[in-house]
């Protein structure tokens, strides 16, 4: 038998959270273990995964000690826990090597209290989380305290699992709680440690005047973050390579209140570290390349205290169930007045979409055919009116066929429409059959036949061609109309809906293609800001024209997702919940999802185009929408931070020294432009980007059509 050690204290259901996903959490015990003949300073603070304990049969001992509240157990012998484990996150460290313990109580929004051990070797061990609701000993203690009407621990806070850990540790080590902080405990601190602490306090007070300190602090802060990142699967080696600044003394750092605040903010977001670390990796990688724009962005990220907000991806997005007819009906009172706010309904649709039976009603609102604030009666009236309008419009050309049949443009357009309708969504049951013989025996489709729905589609598109004369029918419109027709199953209503939809889609189709160009350019700016490393790769692959998004943007992903998903996507986009151009964030989300593959394997435009085209019908809409939302929230935050930073700069005389003149292009900056700024170091928030925050749809109308110009 190997030499046994004595287990002095144990607490069950203490977890390491290696990834953001709770199913990856590893349960274990935290314990104090005295190896044979060791003095107090040699006592090991250990965290051992349950699985490891089961292997070496120590499990029962740990359970017993945990439940042994009166310390009747004199001898509980276990194997000495190893300093670290290759197979798990397990660790042990002698008290003499512990510099400090960071101690985070459970709080609202963060249910598990945690402790993090910092060693004298400047190492941060994985944070361990006390899952109080699962630990029998903690539950017993809480019950007992509740019975005594004293749910609080000695320090006045609610009792939690970590309390007893400190209580026991204190038996063997001197714990100093530095003034001004109740989250950090220095373990057996030397006088030097204590001095350092108070000195650094003074320094912090003076930080506004001391630029060098801010620099050191920032370096240190990043160091800490890289350490924290090592908690995750993101390997420490990689993290350290990324931060090639000389490693400062972490112990100095941990005493700084600012850093504690960082830890505070950060503790609650630890689960996101993996994502977060990847974000840093990108930044660091990118910063090695020389580019004025990106260099500035990197500086901005590294140089600001607030950069945490930007990088910590503490946004969540979760899709909800689609709205069913019951839920939808409950949105209205008996006479049809909306009882929720429009914003609430839109939020719900944005996050969940609609069930099929709700669509014929809800889409009328989303497409603003009927106002949200109206009664059933008023809506019926509007729909009747729409039916008349459609019939009148249709009659205009129907009664004029004699003339029309000599109009070359008209004939051209008509045949274009016919060709396209016969190849639009034919797999959808509505359009699949061709059992009716064609009304025009001379039509090129006379042989193949048609059906009533195909004929309705043609009529609607021909009517639109007349209704919006300057634009006319353009390829792609049949793709936009068919879902509307299938959902409403009413040509007049579908036509009204199509006209509304086309209001915002017109810019995609105008002759000079400026609307598409603008959107692809906005994607360019968006990718520069949000996925800078990918952007560089795309630039090297001559692909920053983003042409591979052309089809996706032109018909709103109609060709990329299955029918049902298209319906969901469109109703989400119609809400304009975050942005009337949320469609561009969907594009961004797709790039984000595939960026690793693109950067690793695809080096030329044709390869990238092929890859993107072949994503068609393979993408998971739910996942893409969640990513798109997170991208948007991060984007909004980035803009906010740049604005705030720019404001700080313009109001600070200190920072202005050594800067150059810089004219801002956007409106917010115009009054600051006269001052000397250093904001050439900030990412440029173009007008295109800023417009993405707007919920107002962008309407661009086609110019008047030259009679000599055909429908091409």
């Amino acid at each position, binding site marked *: 038998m190997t030499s046994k050690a004595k287990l002095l204290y144990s607490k069950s259901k203490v977890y390491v959270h290696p990834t953001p996903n709770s199913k990856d959490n590893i349960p274990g015990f935290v314990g104090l273990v005295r190896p044979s003949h060791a003095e107090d300073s040699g006592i090991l603070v250990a965290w051992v995964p349950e699985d490891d304990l089961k292997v070496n049969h120590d499990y029962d001992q740990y359970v017993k000690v945990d439940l042994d509240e009166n310390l009747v157990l004199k001898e509980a012998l276990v194997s000495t826990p190893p300093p670290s484990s290759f197979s798990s996150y397990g660790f042990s460290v002698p008290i003499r090597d512990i510099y400090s313990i960071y101690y985070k109580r459970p709080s609202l929004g963060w249910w598990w209290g945690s402790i993090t051990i910092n060693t004298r070797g400047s190492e941060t061990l994985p944070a361990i989380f006390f899952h109080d609701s699962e630990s029998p000993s903690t539950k017993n203690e809480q019950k007992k305290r509740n019975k005594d009407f004293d749910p609080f621990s000695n320090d006045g806070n609610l009792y939690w699992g970590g309390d007893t850990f400190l209580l026991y540790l204190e038996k063997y080590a001197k714990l100093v709680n530095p003034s001004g902080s109740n989250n950090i405990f220095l373990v057996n601190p030397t006088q030097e440690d204590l001095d350092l602490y108070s000195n650094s306090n003074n320094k912090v007070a003076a930080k506004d005047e001391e630029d060098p300190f801010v620099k050191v602090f920032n370096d240190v802060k990043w160091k800490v973050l890289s350490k924290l990142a090592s908690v995750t699967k993101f390997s420490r080696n990689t993290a350290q390579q990324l931060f090639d600044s000389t490693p400062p003394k972490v112990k100095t750092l941990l005493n700084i209140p600012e850093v504690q605040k960082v830890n505070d903010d950060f503790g609650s977001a630890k689960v996101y570290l993996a994502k977060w670390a990847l974000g840093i990796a990108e930044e660091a990688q990118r910063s090695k390349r020389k580019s004025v724009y990106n260099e500035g962005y990197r500086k901005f990220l590294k140089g600001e205290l607030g950069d945490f907000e930007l990088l910590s991806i503490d946004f969540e997005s979760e899709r909800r169930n689609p709205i069913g007819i019951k839920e939808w009906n409950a949105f209205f009172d008996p006479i049809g007045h909306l009882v929720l706010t429009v914003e609430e309904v839109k939020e719900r649709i944005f996050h969940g979409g609609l069930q099929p039976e709700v669509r014929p009603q809800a889409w009328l609102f989303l497409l603003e055919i009927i106002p949200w604030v109206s009664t059933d009666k008023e809506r019926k009236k509007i729909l009747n009116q729409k039916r008349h309008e459609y019939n009148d419009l249709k009659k205009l050309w129907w009664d004029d066929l004699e003339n029309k049949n000599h109009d070359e443009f008209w004939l051209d357009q008509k045949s274009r429409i016919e060709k396209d309708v016969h190849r639009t969504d034919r797999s959808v049951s509505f359009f699949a059959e061709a059992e009716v013989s064609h009304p025009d025996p001379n039509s090129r489709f006379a042989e193949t036949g048609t059906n009533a729905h195909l004929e309705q589609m043609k009529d609607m598109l021909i009517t639109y061609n007349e209704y919006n004369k300057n634009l006319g029918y353009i*390829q*792609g419109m049949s793709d936009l109309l068919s879902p509307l027709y299938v959902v409403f199953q009413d040509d007049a209503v579908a036509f009204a809906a199509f006209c509304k939809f086309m209001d915002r889609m017109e810019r995609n189709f105008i002759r000079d293609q400026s609307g598409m160009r603008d959107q692809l350019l906005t994607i360019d700016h968006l990718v520069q800001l949000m996925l800078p490393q990918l952007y560089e790769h795309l630039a090297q692959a001559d692909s920053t024209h983003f*042409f591979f998004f052309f089809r996706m943007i032109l018909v709103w992903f109609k060709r990329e997702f299955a029918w049902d998903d298209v319906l969901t996507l469109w109703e989400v986009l119609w809400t304009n919940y975050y942005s009337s151009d949320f469609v561009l964030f969907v594009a961004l989300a797709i790039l984000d999802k595939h960026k690793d593959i693109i950067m690793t394997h695809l080096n030329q*435009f044709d390869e990238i*185009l092929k890859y993107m085209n072949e994503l068609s019908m393979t993408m998971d809409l739910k996942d893409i929408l969640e990513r798109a939302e997170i991208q948007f929230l991060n984007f909004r935050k980035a803009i906010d931070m740049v604005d705030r930073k720019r404001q700080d700069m313009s109001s600070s005389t200190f920072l202005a020294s050594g800067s150059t003149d810089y004219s801002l292009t956007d409106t917010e900056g115009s009054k600051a432009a006269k001052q000397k700024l250093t904001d050439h170091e900030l990412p440029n928030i173009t007008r295109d980007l800023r417009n993405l925050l707007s919920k107002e749809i962008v309407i661009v109308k086609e110019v008047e059509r030259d009679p000599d110009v055909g429908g091409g």
Partner: protein
Amino acid sequence: MSHRKKAMLKIVILGDSGVGKTSLIRQYVDNKFSTQYKATIGADFFNRELQVDDHTVKMQLWDTAGQERFQSLGVAFYRGADCCVLVYDVNNPKSFEALKAWRDEFLVQANPRDPETFPFVVVGNKVDIEDNNKRVSTKRAQAFCRANGNMPYFETSAKEAIGVEAAFEVIARNALSQAESEDYNEDFTDAINIHLDSDKSPCMC
């Protein structure tokens, strides 16, 4: 450098919407036909290998949107083409009359080194349809091709797989000789090109 063979021949297929560009390519690449290929939006390409004399040629066939306005963003895939195929529907005179405009548009956008000798091939598709009233006659088509730089002319049916292989073999040969002449030219202009390339950097502003 002088004996470098281009790995991939790039061929751009142009023509009015609905003349059967996608169908021709799919018939040639997959031996498939469908009346329900959706209108092409944006661009896509398909690869096929072909034995030309004693070597294997890889072809990248670029399928494009037929509606004119969608061409203005097409520069990205016109560049570096080795051959351009102009397709029309033999039953649709308008699509035939548009060929010249397509040709000019291509030359402007692709900006080949020598527009005079750049190879075009004309394909009249849908010969399976019997419509003698409207039909563009073979004579008329041949005369047009002769008058416009002796472009080779083929009549095909993507639906019945008539003439498709023969057309693409000539397309491949023309593309191959075009690529070889480009290679030859590059030997003299490399020094300049390298210099220009190194100056090219993505605009970040």
